[in-house]
Structure formats: structure tokens, C-alpha cells
């Protein structure tokens, strides 16, 4: 976001590398989710360093972050991680080798220590299977992008729903 003082209710963030096959799943899903929800989006195609995320979500109340995962689950599995502690614990296990200065889990942990996290953070992980050089998602992952978009839309609907005291959110 260019204006550091601006606040937005919902921000969609996509992370990945479109030139490493399924690693582009988070970028593809974030672009589609933002369009479907009419929400602002920031795409980090090849995030050089995770600390950039702390700046990315400055001023955002809710952040939906989409990224590819590599946990050993079947390709196309959707992981929905709610809140920083769960995201940190499970992302450390899922993201594997990274050449980033700081990984996403570390960036979220740093954000938690420095009180630079959005009020609500939901990470939607899309399990990939092919991280080789090249473009295009594997078929299962391509289908899972639609599921990830739906999952993100449900989160956004929940955030946007008028607050009804006593109602379950």
C-alpha cells in the first residue's frame, strides 16, 4: 500500500513465484480472490525477503495471505491457518527450503513481536506438487485455486458482515 496512513478493512496478499510452477498458486488465487471480492491486492512475485510483508499489510485490519505449501499432503489440499501462532507453527513445517532473507513464518513471528500484525490474519495454503522451473499449475493445484478463492471469500464475507451482538462470527 502506498499510503502508509491509509487503513483498509481487507487486504488480499499473494506470495509465490510464477516461474516455479505450483509456487505460483498463491499469486493466481490472490488475484482471483481480490477481483471476486472487490478487495485491494498485493502480489509478491518472488518475495526476496519476508520482512516486506510487515510493510505490505501496514494499515490493513484483515489480511488474507495465499501461498503455495509443501507439507507432503496430497496436491491441491487447502490449509486454512487462522491467527499468527497457528500460521507460524504450521508454516515453519510447510514451506521448506527458501532462499529468502526471512521466510513467511519468521516474518509473521517478527510481526507478532513488534506488534506489526493485522488484527486478523488468515493464511490459506495451497499444497503444490511440482516446483520445477516453468509456468503453469498442475491440474489438481489449478482446481484447488478455485477452492482457495471460495475459502478466502468466506473469510471476507465474515469480516464484512455487520456485527450482530451475540451472533457467531
Amino acid at each position: 500500500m502506498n499510503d502508509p496512513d491509509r487503513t483498509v478493512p481487507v487486504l488480499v496478499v499473494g506470495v509465490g513465484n510464477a516461474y516455479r510452477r505450483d509456487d505460483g498458486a498463491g499469486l493466481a488465487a490472490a488475484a482471483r480472490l481480490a477481483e471476486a471480492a472487490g478487495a485491494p491486492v498485493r502480489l509478491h512475485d518472488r518475495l526476496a525477503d519476508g520482512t516486506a510483508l510487515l510493510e505490505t499489510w501496514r494499515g490493513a485490519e484483515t489480511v488474507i495471505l495465499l501461498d503455495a505449501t509443501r507439507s507432503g499432503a496430497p496436491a491441491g489440499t487447502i490449509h486454512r491457518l487462522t491467527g499468527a501462532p497457528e500460521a507460524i507453527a504450521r508454516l515453519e513445517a510447510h514451506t521448506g527450503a527458501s532462499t529468502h532473507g526471512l521466510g513467511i513464518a519468521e516474518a509473521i513471528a517478527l510481526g507478532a513481536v513488534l506488534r506489526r500484525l493485522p488484527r486478523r490474519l488468515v493464511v490459506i495454503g495451497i499444497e503444490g506438487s511440482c516446483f520445477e522451473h516453468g509456468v503453469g499449475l498442475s491440474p489438481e493445484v489449478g482446481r484447488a485455486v478455485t477452492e482457495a478463492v471460495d475459502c478466502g471469500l468466506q473469510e471476507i464475507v465474515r469480516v464484512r458482515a455487520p456485527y450482530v451482538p451475540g451472533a457467531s462470527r
Partner: protein
Amino acid sequence: MPVERRTIKVDALARVEGEGALYVRTSRGRVTEVRLQIYEPPRFFEAFLRGRAFTETPDITARICGICPVAYQMSACRAMEDACGVAVGGQLRALRRLLYCGEWIQSHALHVYMLHAPDFLGYGSIVEMARDHPEAVQRGLGLKQAGNELMRLLGGREVHPINVRVGGFYRVPSRRELDGFVERLRRARDAAVETVRWVAGFDMPAFEQPYEFVALRRPDEYPIDDGRIASSGGLDIAAGEYGDHFVEEQVPHSHALHSRLRAGGAYLVGPLARYNLNFEALSPLAKEAARGAGLGPVCRNPFQSIVVRGVELVYACDEALRLIGQYDAPERPYVDVPPRAATGHGCTEAPRGILYHRYTIDAAGTIVEARIVPPTSQNQAQIEADLRDVVQQSLALPDDRLTLRCEQAVRNYDPCISCATHFLRLHIDRT
């Protein structure tokens, strides 16, 4: 320590860019073997540049590194312009230097605060350090962000900028756009001065080496984008003579080639080399920051590289402000670079040291041959030499502390393993 044989192994070095490992073996209190193993797979950039248009090099080579893409773009452009007999000067050169300042600021801030400072303060990671030093970490993040914003302003985006072309830029900023950034840079410069004070207070291991420093040198300015290749041993050559004086060798334990001086051996590139060969060219504020940190014009302790990076942060902010102050938007964003059959050389100062490119192109501008020598591969032999002496000096330490000291010594060089492959885990064998 009475133990006869020790092995220290680090299987995956943390807080370095890319994947590598370290293996050290000692026998009867002597270091017998040190190997910096770079196992990040090679990426064959030089091979797939062949057959591409000369105009594609800034965008293709930018992809080699997410931290220092501008260095690749600048060395590539310089080499192609050299081949075609075109010199880019005036405000276009000033803008290139300004973009490069952005990269130095973000890269040095990342390394000083996020990667290297935890070693000196005894933390396993930046997250642990942030719990006790939140103010410092926020300052580091702010500095890094200023560098990123400068890169975005001139390069179109901060990772793999897209606005650089052979001959100049696709679009140049207006005077007003740059003026709008002045206040941000002034705050960054204050943070950089504070950075030098902060790191100067760290406990520095006593360790000096008789380095041969290699860096670009110009009498009139601190080297970033231009200069002759000079060394503390008296070398003074043009980029085109690089191949006559430096040689790359394969070693069995690394995917990265080791560089050596034909006339000497291992040498050191990067902030320490630039500083020692160009101290007088620093801005008055940067010199003052260095003196305030207790540094003279010569610094041979690689652990103090963190202070020198701080001094270069001050310089880069200062220089960026100077460049903006004298800016006058050029009428055209680039100069024409008509191709011709020739070989060109380009050498610029990436944050980690000199980055050399050489290309041969045909009359249509198609690349026939490409050669890229990144700073980390040039430093590998020197890193191993440093480690040998660091381990020898520190044998009394238990394995866990010795391992940390070794990692800290490697991080003195801010190695960029992804760049060097064609890089960390640590094994120390004490026998």
C-alpha cells in the same frame, strides 16, 4: 582443549542467501581441512543467455538475485554499452547510481540488522533479537523499506526492477517525484548514522588478516557503478583486463567456482575492500560516522565489516540525497545503443563486491558468449582462509560456540549463495 580430533559440521547455514554447508576438520589442535560447500544447484544463466538479444540482458540477469538485481542490471548494461561503443553519462548515469543506492540501502540494512547483528548480540534469530531490541529492529526495517521504495521509484518495482534498459531507462522520474522522496531519505540517513553508533558498540572478536582487497576505485567518488579495478597489492586495471588478472577454478566441494588472482591467490571483495581502497572518497558525514565508530582509513578485521556496512549505509543515503539535489530530468530516458560485433566488459560494485560481466555479441546484437563472475564466488577462497584462522584461534571453544563463531565469520561476507552458483551447513571434525 585436550580433545585430539574434532569435526564441526553445519548442514544448512542459516541467515545467508541460498543453500550451503560448512565442514571443518581439526587434528591434534591443528585445522587440517576447511570446506565451504555450496550445494545450491547451478542455474546455467550464462548458457541460456547465448542466442538471446543483447537488449534482454538487464531483465534476464536481474533474475539471478532477489536482493541485488540492480547490480546485475548495471554490470550487464555497462558491458553491452562497452561492446557497442556507447557511454551513458550525465543524468542517466546519475539515475543509475541513485537506483544502485536504493539497492545498497535495502541489502545492507537487511544484512546488518536481520542477518548479522544477532551473531554479535547472541541471538539465534532476528525474531529472538526483536524481543529485546525492538527499537533497533524497527529502525532496520525502516531503513530497508527506504531502500526498497527508492528501487520501486526508479526501477518500477523493488524485486527484479523492470525499468532498466541498455542505454538508460524506459521512463525517467520527474524532478517533483524525486523531491517527494527527500524527507524519507533524510530520515533514513539519520537511521543510518544511528546504525553505525549501534553496531560500533558490539563486542568485536580480535582478528585481522593481511587481505588483498579488490574493489573499483575512482579518485573523485566512492565506487558504485564505475571505476577501475584496483587492489591493495597495486593492481590497477580496466574492466576489460579482468580476465588477464583473475582466474576461476572448479573445486570438488562446491557448485560455485573459486576465483583467484593469477599473481596472488585469494582476495576479498565487498564493503571492507571498497572502504580500504576508497576511504578518502566517502562523504564527510560517512567519514565522521566511521571515525566516531573508532575506524581509521584502514580496517583489516572482517568482523568489523558490519560497521563498514553501516558507514556505507550513511554514504548511500547521503549520495542519494546529493544525486536528487542536482537532478535535472533528461530529455530522453535512454541513449541509442546500436549493436555491433564485439566483446564488452562491465564491472560494478554489488553490495557484496565487484560483479563482472563479459559478453560477446554478433553484428545483429545476438549474444554469442556470456561470462558472469559474482562477488560471492570471488570471496569463497578468502572465506575458507578466514575460517581456517578463526577456528585455529578459537579451538578452546566448545563445539557449539565454535560453530556459531564460524557462522558469524561466514556472515562477515554476507554471502549470496544463489548468486554464486554456478552456496550453508557446518561440519567441524576434531580428531
